[in-house]
């Protein structure tokens, strides 16, 4: 029983920590800017990717 209680506390605590620290979510602000800057350095100016693709995911249904 004590072991089960420990499992509950550890898993619960772990999930609380993951949620409080927003682990796994994309970051906006300085970290976004830094990562985008690095990415843009590796893209050749003038290419299609340099100017971005504005058409989203193209996730249309396209029939059943």
């Amino acid at each position, binding site marked *: 029983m004590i072991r*089960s209680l420990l499992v509950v506390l550890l*898993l619960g605590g772990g999930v609380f920590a993951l*949620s409080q620290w927003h682990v796994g979510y994309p970051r906006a602000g300085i970290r976004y800017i830094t990562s985008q*800057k690095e990415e843009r350095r590796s893209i050749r100016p003038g290419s299609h990717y340099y100017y971005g693709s504005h*058409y989203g995911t193209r996730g*249309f249904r396209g029939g*059943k």
Partner: protein
Amino acid sequence: MPQESGQIKPQKCGGCGADLVKSYRSHYDAEEEETVTIPVAKCVSCGREYDQHTEEYYRVFADSFIQDKDNSAFKLGLKGSISGVGYEIIGRLRYQDEDEYERAVWDEWVAVSDEGSYHYFVEEEGEVYSYEEYVPSSIDLEAGPDSFEFEGRTISKRNAYTGRIVFAEGELPWRPAIGEPVRCYDFKKDGVHFTIEHSEDEVSITRGEKIEYDTVIGAFGGESEKDKYARTMGRRKSYKRRAALYLAASVLSLAAAVMNCVTGDEVPGVLTASQILSSNQYQSEGGSASYFSQVLYGPFRIEQGDSLYDVTVFADTSAEPLRLGWESFRLMLVKEERLARVTGAGSDPASLRALFSDIDSFGEPVESYAVTGDFWDEEGRDDEGYWHENDLSASSSFVLDEPGNYYAYLELYNNQPRNPASVRFRIERTSSYRYYLVLVAVFLVLMFVNRSKARSYNELPFMMA
């Protein structure tokens, strides 16, 4: 004098007298709607088959029904007392349900009490019932085609079943034959279990109640059985407590997930100020044409840094319906001071339009975050007929590092001209719930595992429900 019917002699065919052997037969079963293979006894000479509705079948297959016959809480010769009445186990009959192809047996242990009357302990699927002989005030087994009368009550015959004796041992009140059929009627009246066993020669009526293994082992078990029973029940209780703990943890996790999912603070005023920088500019690229619009919203204040936000962009169909078309968007969150740094004094619509048109060409991004997506509305026909579907919203979660004043730059691409103000968005400060949902699943799995163990853990050699 003890007798045992487990020793089976070679069985003979009723037609030609040759030996019977175990065999199988396949036939189409209308109820199962498939071809089934069932065991049959078969004559080696004339090929005659005997299925489970014949006595020959049970004589040939008797050994397959008695492999576990010693795994029981009872044994011949055991003595014990229950509720102050002493019993001695003197015999046992094992029955197989005739309607089942698989093994479906129960044991009827015959005991004689201090008072000199017969008593029956029925052991089936991990449960024990204690029965005594009963003489009803009235009974008519032929009262109706589907029912009989028992002490003024009509009892349905629909739940009747036929048991076939597959094993007998000890001193029994009568001499049973292997394969002998007994028609059984089990029913409850005034909270008491009754069983009527109707065989070729006689009708036996008994009444009784379920008794716990605690009582049975306390009366008939040795010290070893009592210890194993105590350990088994202790472990089962422990698994039950663990299952309850995991269930409670699962409910709490679900509550946390729901609470985090439904609670959120909307960032106020994100749509209050807006500038349409361009509207439905025709563009053609790689053979595909589109209409391009740009809108700048804000500035608005985002108060909390290092917080999780959820942005939802949606086509506002009340402003303009999206019918059989598509629309792509990109929404950028731009901090006011970063925008001011790149625009300098020129923040008129023309300068802003020029700036945002080239926003991807900056070596260092101006925006703090960007989200893209598509809306679509389609219809068509397929083998199931007409369909019409759409997807008119998209959302994204992100963690914003710094509070401050922000603009939201929205650019839109359409396959047809559309009002740029028909796409709206909202930003909410929210809490993460995804990990709590994972936790709910983990705790539920642990709960089911422990619940299953609480039912199945057993140190005793016989089944206990």
